[in-house]
């Protein structure tokens, strides 16, 4: 399926994946993230329950300390 991930077109080798699976596929190993799917916030405890399908717009924002 084709999705948009962080403003870039991505081809994912599956028809549907959970957020948790998508993070594993893309090797996002960072701990502190903000995730949105089609503009809707997905909190960490929902990563296994929210699905990404064809055409979805996914944002995975990685946060590090410092300021």
């Amino acid at each position: 399926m084709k999705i948009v991930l962080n403003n870039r077109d991505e081809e994912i080798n599956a028809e549907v994946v959970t957020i948790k699976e998508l993070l594993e596929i893309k090797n996002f190993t960072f701990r502190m993230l903000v995730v949105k799917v089609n503009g809707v916030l997905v909190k960490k405890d929902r990563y296994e329950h929210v699905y990404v399908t064809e055409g979805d717009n996914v944002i995975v924002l990685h946060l590090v300390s410092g300021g």
Partner: protein
Amino acid sequence: MTFEEIKDKLSHFKIGIAGAGGLGSNCAASLIRAGVKKLVIADFDVVCESNLNRQFYFADQIGVLKVKALNDNLLRIYSNLDIDFRVLKITHENVKELFQNCDVIVEAFDDKHEKQMLIESVIKYLPNIPLVIGSGMAGWGDNNSIVTEKFDNLFACGDKVSEINEDLPPIGPRVGIVANMQANQVLEILLGKM
């Protein structure tokens, strides 16, 4: 636009700044110099010696509440400002009340858990207000790694990866670059592109 027109336009907007540390204090100073007059700034901390390497405070302000010291310092740049400074810890519960009347919100925390809390709260309670965050500015050098990326109405400034630790402390130049990128992004949101 002339600078007079820019100042006049910016003076009508209110900017919320979450945190008065390295990002918040420098971003606030930059916004005030550009012509912003109305700020809401929240922080509960006091100035300490280790802050002076990057934050807009002075040695004789050690021990003073940051929002109080920042208010004093900003008023030394321009005297006719309308600064609503709040001595409090920003939480999920008070984000909406604090920033609901702002035109743009600047995330200016140090800790990534706090950053996440603020971002999630703004997305949940104030989704229509643009949010400008800072992530990744520890250490020194590597100017060209620092960028701004737009995600919906969230703008992320920083190099996205360099996290502070004992051997990679936050220091004036890179923190100041990101604070000023945040201020510059606020101007672009309010004034439009050049």
